[in-house]
């Protein structure tokens, strides 16, 4: 039986009327029309559907929408801001770490969660953090290089560090429709 729930996505509250068996992923894509989050394996394997829940990356195909009530969800639409791409997105483009692009939104979310919690990871830590995001095109090398590059940019630029900590809120409030 369908019920009304309120989901907080990218800083905005959405009232949706959904069945209890509906996954967070499907509500995000179908009800909220935020199709940046991709549907891959639907079994918690590939990471294409990764969103942040209370700041941590999760497979949105494994979470019942009802179970996400009261949690802070951030999707790829909530990353960056109206002023342009997030530095992680820019770095992925610059390093040629995007080929078909299907895994990219998930990669961005996971990399963002990593750099938000640890702006200065080792390459090993980046690889481990990205272990749940499968990419069949790039061979991962360029993705890892891109994330390491952002980390380097953050450590070299206090302004970027400042901007990123602000853009978390800015991005969430201004994007996401």
């Amino acid at each position, binding site marked *: 039986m369908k019920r009304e729930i309120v989901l907080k996505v990218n800083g905005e509250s959405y009232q949706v009327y959904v069945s209890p068996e509906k*996954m967070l992923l499907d509500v995000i894509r179908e009800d909220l029309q935020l199709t940046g989050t991709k549907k891959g394996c639907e079994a*918690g394997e590939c*990471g294409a559907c990764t969103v942040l829940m209370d700041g*941590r990356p999760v497979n949105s195909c*494994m*979470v*019942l929408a009802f179970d996400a009530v009261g949690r802070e969800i951030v999707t790829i639409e909530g990353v960056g801001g109206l002023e342009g791409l997030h530095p992680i997105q820019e770095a992925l483009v610059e390093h040629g770490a995007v080929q078909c692009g299907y895994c990219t939104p998930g990669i961005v979310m*996971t990399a963002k969660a990593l750099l938000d919690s640890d702006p200065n990871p080792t390459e090993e830590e980046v690889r481990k953090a990205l272990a749940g995001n499968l990419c069949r095109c790039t061979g991962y090398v360029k993705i890892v290089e891109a994330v390491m590059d952002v980390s380097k940019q953050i450590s070299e630029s206090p302004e970027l560090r400042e901007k990123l900590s602000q853009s978390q809120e800015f991005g969430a409030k201004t994007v996401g429709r």
Partner: protein
Amino acid sequence: MQNFNYLEPGSLWEAVGILEGLEGKAFPLAGGTDLVRTFKRIGFREHGVINLKKIPELSGVKFDGQVMSIGALSTVSELLANSEVDEHFPVLAQAARALGTPQIRNLATIGGNLCTSSPASDLAPALLAYQAKIIITGPNGEREVAVNEFFKGPGQNVLDRGEILTRIDLNLPVPGTIGAFLKHGVRKSHEIALVNTAVLIIPVRGSDKIAVARIALGAVGPTPFRAWQAEEQLAGAEGGLPQFEEAAKIAQELASPIDDVRASADYRKHMAGVLVKRALFQAWGGKV
């Protein structure tokens, strides 16, 4: 045809009551990383979940200096973020690090991992080595089960109708206890173990002798299990590669793995021995 039922009890007793009343039609929902997959396979209709996340006493990790009480809904990531787990129960931390992917670890819970009762659980061997106590609440009140008596077969455990696993208690190991967790798979991460093992050794102080050894194996039998005979072999023995090889041989003989698409039984059995030897040697301070 009945619709999928979603319930969210606010107390443990309410959950127990609902669970008992619904006769196996509704399943307790913790992290969901196994249960949701199951529903996707068998269909949601005519089933339901009892989401346990609104029950306060199932969350949180407490340590009083002697006993660590881990709420059943503690996620694998929460275990990893807890410095006391890392400091006092490092083998459990190593096992937690080996489980799934970051995304799965952020959802999956220790209670769910035990209740799924997969023979290849990564947490189970570590909990066996630490002799964890499983606390269960059901219609007849609370009871306690040693973790080595919890599993009954692939996907099966001692939980009766209406019972919920509420927490896991670990006693602080004797000072000087050393250990290791090793997992063998085809990939370095994002893998279901072909075989995994957790070992703990309590050395006799000021000597090269072993007072107590505990060896637990996963994915090479219907349930994760303790290799008692191998442990006995090491009790009182000198620590060293020849002794570890001997114990590993015994542990290997206790393994009864299956043949499947991921590996042959022979290979798993062989690797069970190799892994136990390596884990003992590594715990003892040797390099593999």
